[in-house]
């Protein structure tokens, strides 16, 4: 405990001179003395109750009844962490559950949900109708096991059967009554909330943690059976199972989901740019940008070497005709214009994710680039150093740079104010290195009639301090940094646990980083390591709600 206290005190006084979490090694030996089957560290804790995010709820209904509900009609989940977390609920959300369950229960193919309903020829005829109370009970028990991710207890089943009986007594057909029960199950708190179960049923929680993390979806029958047979009890079994699940096609979705959130790709769905500055920019081009990044991530993690280094410096990408024209790349007239084709990049101009138009356009203003946003992304999501909130009531108001100056000079002007500079020096000089790319990610040699200066610099890092020139150069440095590697571990930790890491997690994070490093930065090994931590985590009632840090994160930036 003593070490934690010191760590906390150091953080409290750090401010902009030493960024929060800036040591990259912080947290001391905060794992305590406990040990688990797989390691040296005490189990990480997780809240006893978490709500499925809207994306998880959608995937759950898709898996269970084959219906794709529109979750854009759901209120979004809290994203202060940088990743969506189901830590609060609301009346609006509960109503959306009811509406989604109604739609899904109506559209579901009952025969697939429960076999006995398959051959129901007509509704409610005495002859030949295989739906009866026995069938309803069968659905509750067999479908309920998957829907609630554990065997359905007697009292729960009894309450659902009562619902069925009342509907039939109310004059509804057997099929309609069955659908009503299905509708109740699809909005049941037993489906909507993930509870960490006590020791006896712990294996079911473990199955659900693995499947939501690795598949973004509920466990299937095979996984539930494995859990039941004790196949997820030991560290080695878990790591083995995580590898199997990661190799499964279903893991595509979860991997894409992490990168979609980490890179904030959804912002492209409603991005707007100033028509005068960027004529021709439209939602179709934004969609092409999103596709590029998704295709690249998919290639690296699913077919390629899976390395963080490749994500950051890869010499190829995927462009459709629209994006190719935007980049000034020729994909050849014989190629289908709507498909994203693999193309090799001019290594002096572009390399890896940070030169994707998606990243560059998202981290820009409507009518200009933004060294601040680009630098902030690197600082917060690649170096895991939180920027303190802007000061309250800064004494001076910002200067008014000459609008005819290039972006870099205008932002440099802005940093002259000392009260702004202390924090902006942590972002802007990184962002200046991105000035080769305009607000929609096009490469440029000049701005406002002046040649682009793409020199940048990093300060206050663990192992990256120094100057660089342009993004390909920066990307190379980032790719070899232990701080960046450690940050990726933290990002995946946050995504998996729905909360920020604390000093108590330092031991577990350090162990995961060792495995990640031993695999030469192969993200797939990192994912397995995190899956193992997750499976071995302890539910903790005393833990605060999953996304409740002591104060809102500075990631909470829209």
């Amino acid at each position, binding site marked *: 405990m003593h070490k934690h206290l010191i760590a906390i005190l150091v953080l409290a006084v750090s401010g902009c001179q030493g960024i929060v979490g800036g040591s990259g090694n912080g947290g001391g030996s905060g794992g305590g003395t406990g040990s688990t089957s797989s390691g040296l560290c005490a189990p990480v804790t997780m809240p006893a109750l978490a709500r499925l995010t809207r994306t998880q709820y959608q995937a759950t209904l898709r898996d269970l009844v084959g219906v794709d509900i529109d979750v854009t*009609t759901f209120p979004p989940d809290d994203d202060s962490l940088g990743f969506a977390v189901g830590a609060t*609920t609301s*009346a609006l959300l509960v109503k959306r559950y009811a509406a989604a369950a109604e739609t899904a229960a109506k559209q579901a193919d009952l025969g697939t949900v429960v076999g006995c309903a398959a051959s129901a020829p007509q509704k409610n005829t005495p002859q030949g109708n295989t739906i009866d109370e026995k069938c309803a009970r069968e659905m509750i028990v067999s479908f309920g096991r998957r829907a609630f991710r554990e065997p359905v207890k007697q009292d*729960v089943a009894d309450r*659902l059967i009562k619902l069925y009986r009342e509907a039939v007594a109310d004059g509804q057909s057997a099929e309609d009554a069955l659908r009503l029960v299905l509708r109740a199950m699809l909005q*049941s708190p037993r489906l909507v909330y993930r*509870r960490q179960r006590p020791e006896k049923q712990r294996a079911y929680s473990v199955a659900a943690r693995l499947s939501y993390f690795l598949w973004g979806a509920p466990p299937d029958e095979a996984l539930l059976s494995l859990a039941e047979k004790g196949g997820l009890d030991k560290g080695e079994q878990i790591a083995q199972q995580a590898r199997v699940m990661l190799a499964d096609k279903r893991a595509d979705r979860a991997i894409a989901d992490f990168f979609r959130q980490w890179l904030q790709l959804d912002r492209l769905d409603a991005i707007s740019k100033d028509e005068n500055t960027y004529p021709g920019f439209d939602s179709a081009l934004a969609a092409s940008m999103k596709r590029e990044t998704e295709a690249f991530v998919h290639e690296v993690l699913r077919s390629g070497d899976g390395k963080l280094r490749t994500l950051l410096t890869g010499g190829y990408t995927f462009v459709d005709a629209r994006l190719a024209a935007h980049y000034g790349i020729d994909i050849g007239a014989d190629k289908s214009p709507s498909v994203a084709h693999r193309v090799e990049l001019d290594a002096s101009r572009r390399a890896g994710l940070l030169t994707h138009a998606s990243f560059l356009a998202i981290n820009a203003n409507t009518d200009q680039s933004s060294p601040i946003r680009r630098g902030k992304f690197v600082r917060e999501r690649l170096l895991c150093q939180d920027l303190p909130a802007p000061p309250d009531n800064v004494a001076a108001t910002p200067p008014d740079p000459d609008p005819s100056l290039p972006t870099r000079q205008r932002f440099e002007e802005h940093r002259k104010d000392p009260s702004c500079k202390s924090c902006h020096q942590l972002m802007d000089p990184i962002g200046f290195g991105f000035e080769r790319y305009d607000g929609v990610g096009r490469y440029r040699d000049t701005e406002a009639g002046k040649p682009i200066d793409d020199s940048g610099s990093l300060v206050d890092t663990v192992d990256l301090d120094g100057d660089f020139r342009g993004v390909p150069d920066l990307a190379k440095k980032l790719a070899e940094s232990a701080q960046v590697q450690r940050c990726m571990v933290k990002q995946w930790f946050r995504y998996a646990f729905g909360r920020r890491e604390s000093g108590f997690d330092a031991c577990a994070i350090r162990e995961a980083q060792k495995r990640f490093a031993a695999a030469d930065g192969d993200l797939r090994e990192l994912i397995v390591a995190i899956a193992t931590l997750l499976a071995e985590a302890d539910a903790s009632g005393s833990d605060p*709600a999953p996304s409740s840090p*002591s104060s809102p994160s500075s990631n909470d930036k*829209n």
Partner: protein
Amino acid sequence: MSLSRRMFLGGLAGAAALGVAPIVRMRTANANGFPRRLVVFFTPNGTIARDFFPTPGDDFALTPILEPLRQYKDKLLVLDGLDLESSYAGGGGPHQRALASLLTGYELIGQWAGGVSVDQHIAATVSKDRPFKSVELGVQVRFANTMSRMIYAAAGQPMPPQESPKLAFDAIFGQIAGQKDPLGVEKLRRQRKSLLDSVTSELAAIKRELGGQEREMLDTHLDAVRMMEKELTASGDPGGACKPPEINAVGVDPLSPQSYGDVGKQQLDIIHMALACDLTRVASLQWSHGESPVSFPWIGVNSGHHGLSHSGDTNVAGNTSLTKIMTWYAEQLAYFVGKLAATPEGNGSLLDNTVVMWCNDLGKGNNHSRRRVPFLLIGNAGGNLRTGRAIDFGGKPHNQLLASLCQVMGLEDTKTFGNPLFCPAPLTGLG
């Protein structure tokens, strides 16, 4: 997404089926017998003080930003000199603190505000017997983080606004749409009731299993189910000014940047009719969030609002754009106030029985100041507000205004609101 007029007319039948009670005279009603209503109208990123605040007085001169409200000048009560004092306590970034404190009068405790928001507090009394306790709508709020939430059901329990006019319409006016046959309606009601009962029993069972941990989410869920039950049993008959709004939502994508104004108007139409039909007595509209990226090319403002709000004090172009944006918001407000004014109630109008509060998270965007936050009250709240004036409170905590708002809405015993450290007493001189 496209909505047809027919769909909404279908909703009209739905509203008739759902039944809308004739306006009930309650103890929070006014001398004229009509109930009081509260509407919160939020816009972000501060203002340009000289273009917003008039010189205080009874016969004040309209400022450029307030110009669109000229027709309703005698219904305006402009409040200068109010500070979000509670936002200077606690942690968080400036936009986070500001949004959290604006309606709750509390600082952030952890990630969320430490108390209920004033609209919800008032709704618990004035809207108690209405089908909807309150209606929270938004325009392209998009996010769910601290700087995107201003309404709180309780400490730590932020409430998201509905951002889709279609879904808002369906929820409020189209409950059991298309069902003309009363027996069918009854049956649907029974069905929904039994589904809600099922959710309730499982929530109770899970709460027992968890043994007291992590109960807040389950309690909020339970409250939501209870509200939905009440919405089911609302009955009565629409009449008089109550007609579900006719909204032409064809081609209006609630998330498209070009639709910003259209979506806002539709949401305001829905709020107007929810009030006119007395389906609720408390509503709010939240435009964007604390770091609004919205640009307004239709008024010649092509940069994002938040970026512009950091223009220096001497940046004429930047400040002109900010005034343009605030003036545009005032136009939207005038549109809404016009609807209230055109809705007869007794010898007057709905506006006479309503108070609309235009509020902002900041006073000044470029330094995140939460002092001199622009507050504007519109309407008489049944004679409880003496309007047509501009008052300067000279630097009082805005919690005092929130407490006054409770009184104005009929919670007359209110002595304080939010964190009592920042609320010595309600404001005087509003009535």
